[in-house]
């Protein structure tokens, strides 16, 4: 199994990552997932989701999870 990582909007363009699959090694946090796709420090206003819900950077991920990173939302 694996973790799917998605990036959106300006972050997708900056990182050059739209969707990526990562091996799940167990005990990983959202922070670990971030540093698996880039060595850049996370922007201060970064938003993170796991399985379509907002989560914090220390949230633990598990096999099959969908993790997403994106900038502040600007809908409506």
């Amino acid at each position, binding site marked *: 199994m694996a973790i799917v990582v998605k990036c959106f909007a300006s972050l997708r363009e900056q990182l050059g990552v739209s969707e990526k699959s990562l091996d799940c090694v167990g005990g990983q946090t959202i922070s670990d997932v971030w540093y698996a796709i880039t060595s850049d420090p996370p922007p201060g206003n970064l938003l993170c989701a796991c399985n379509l819900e907002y989560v914090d950077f220390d949230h633990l991920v598990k096999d099959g999870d969908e993790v997403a990173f*994106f900038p502040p939302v600007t*809908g409506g």
Partner: protein
Amino acid sequence: MTVEIRPEDYDPWVELSRYQARSDRLQPGAFGACASFVGTMRDFSEGDNVSSMTLEYYPGMTEKQLNDLVEGAIANHELIDALILHRVGEVRPGDAIVLVATWSAHRKASFDACRLIMEHLKSQAPFWKKEQLSDSERWVESNTSG
């Protein structure tokens, strides 16, 4: 209740009228108040003319967040029904972006819920706007406060 992401232009008043006519919850005489809000694309943003805009979203999460919003509003505000319709894709000045409508017996519930849904949508629903200017483009960085 209905939540919909729409990739084409729509007339918000036609949508509202149709929805009210076909919803089982909205029999004539059963509700006394409908508050609604329509957000429309302007041709001007932060001092620049904007010729068009691209609205990106997160398929799956966006719908889930909007559904949670509507369900929370119905549970907390004695709403009879609610509708959210949000545009995505290429948008032109004058196009409707978002339509939120809420129905209740008395006006307080529909007013409160309509505004609350809009504020939460603005801060939580994963949509992102990229503006096309005359010779460049830029991501909108944050929403104005409500």
